[in-house]
């Protein structure tokens, strides 16, 4: 079971480190990371394993979203199923 963490906004120092540290706190293993600049926006996409979380999904999601607010970036945490279902037959 995996979730996709998307960070969109202005690039600042340490975003990757802070987001992955937060994931580690919840025992969410970061499996893949890609970073790119799309339409003048920094976009970092992380795929994290959420099968061994030490809390529920909602707490992880809220916590990452508020971290994003602190850093001035927009964070989305969404179950991978939504992407798989929309973009694959």
């Amino acid at each position, binding site marked *: 079971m995996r979730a996709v963490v998307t960070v969109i906004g202005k690039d600042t120092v340490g975003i990757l480190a802070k987001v992955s540290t937060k994931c580690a706190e919840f025992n969410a293993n970061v499996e*893949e990371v890609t970073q790119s600049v799309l339409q003048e926006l920094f976009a970092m996409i992380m*795929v994290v394993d959420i099968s061994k979380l030490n809390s529920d999904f*909602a707490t992880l999601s809220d916590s990452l979203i508020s971290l994003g607010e602190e850093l001035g970036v927009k964070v989305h945490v*969404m*179950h991978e199923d*939504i*992407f798989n279902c929309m*973009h694959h*037959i």
Partner: protein
Amino acid sequence: MINVYDILETIRMIQDDCLDIRTITMGISLLDCIDSDIDKACEKVYEKITTKAKDLVKVGEQIEKELGIPIINKRISVTPIAIISAACKGSPVKFAHAMDKAAKTVGVNLIGGYSALVPKGFSAGDIELIKSIPEALATTERVCSSVNIGSTKTGINLDAVKLMGGIIRECAEKTVDQACFGAAKLVVFCNAVEDNPFMAGAFHGVGEPDCMINVGVSGPGVVRAALKKYPDADITGIADVIKEISYKITRVGQLVGTIASERLGVPFGIVDLSLAPTPAVGDSVAHILEEIGLEKCGTHGTTACLAMLNDAVKKGGVMACSRIGGLSGAFIPVSEDAGMIAAAKSGTLCIEKLEAMTAVCSVGLDMIVVPGDTPADTLSAIIADEAAIGMVNCKTTAVRVIPAIGKDVGEELDWGGLFGCGPVMPLKKESASKFINRGGQIPAPLHSLKN
């Protein structure tokens, strides 16, 4: 890894283009609540709804969080109450109160099924229920009502049509202090469907299982945003873009329904492939039509664009989900669609054009505000016209018009929220009373004889 472009596209659809799941609706059969003692029956109704739907809102919110997509409404539909109330004496309004109380307990915003099915005539309990609708809607907050007055198979029950014109007026009159909102909670159908998840017309048909989850998707904003990228495509190309985007929208509906059904332990019924607008900026069906190339929705060409849109939505969605049902098509509620409101205010969109549009899209004359002095017989005649379109075209049509008591053309009714606001639209002044008062049954059309 999942494609970066796909991820960002999904996020943009949700964040910028108002993609959402409009409703998860739990259909609950009340057939086992029938009792000759009305109080006992109401108690059973309350008990059954609050037991079956106790986790509906919680599960809906969980899914919303996990998938990152808003699920705007969690709702309940029940067996048409006329069937339940037929067995007992006393005012059927008691059932409305039990439904309202149950809706509040489980936290759903609307509950549908204060309904009667009378396409071919009235059976025990039907007239009592229909006559109680104004009181039921005025004294409850979340209950919605519908009456099916005709079908392709049966023809149109003109006696019921006559009755409903008066009932709509009474609903508005009894709720003048709430901007006549009672009438906005009442739908008059021809060819009503049994698994519609959308309010106010949802009820749980007697052919449905005991309990069922149905999902209604949305996404006019997403369709419009997709079309914007193809300013020069020909109309075939436009239809293809709509199909592609509808597929994606519907897949989310299928996913949400599957998860909800697993977690609630209730079978998954259908996905209703509908483009349901809201008054929010960027969530309008009218704006899709304008994006295709109309200066204003309601002008010449609107019916053709809408027909193409409605068909493409179905073609795109059909492969994306296991079972399709409900109304499935583009909704055109005037007050709930920013583009329709603007078009109606400017005078380009008139009731005659809306009627033509309903021949090619999913529902009918929806959320239309009419002058407060409109006679009941004129409302009945509007219902009869709309039902005739449904009957002859083998499709669902509906009428949800709101007489703005004390108001006239140039004024408006404003409910706020998802229901929006609607300008009073002019109607013809000439009477149809003689026709409506003839009563009887308009016979079923020849093409209903298919066997």
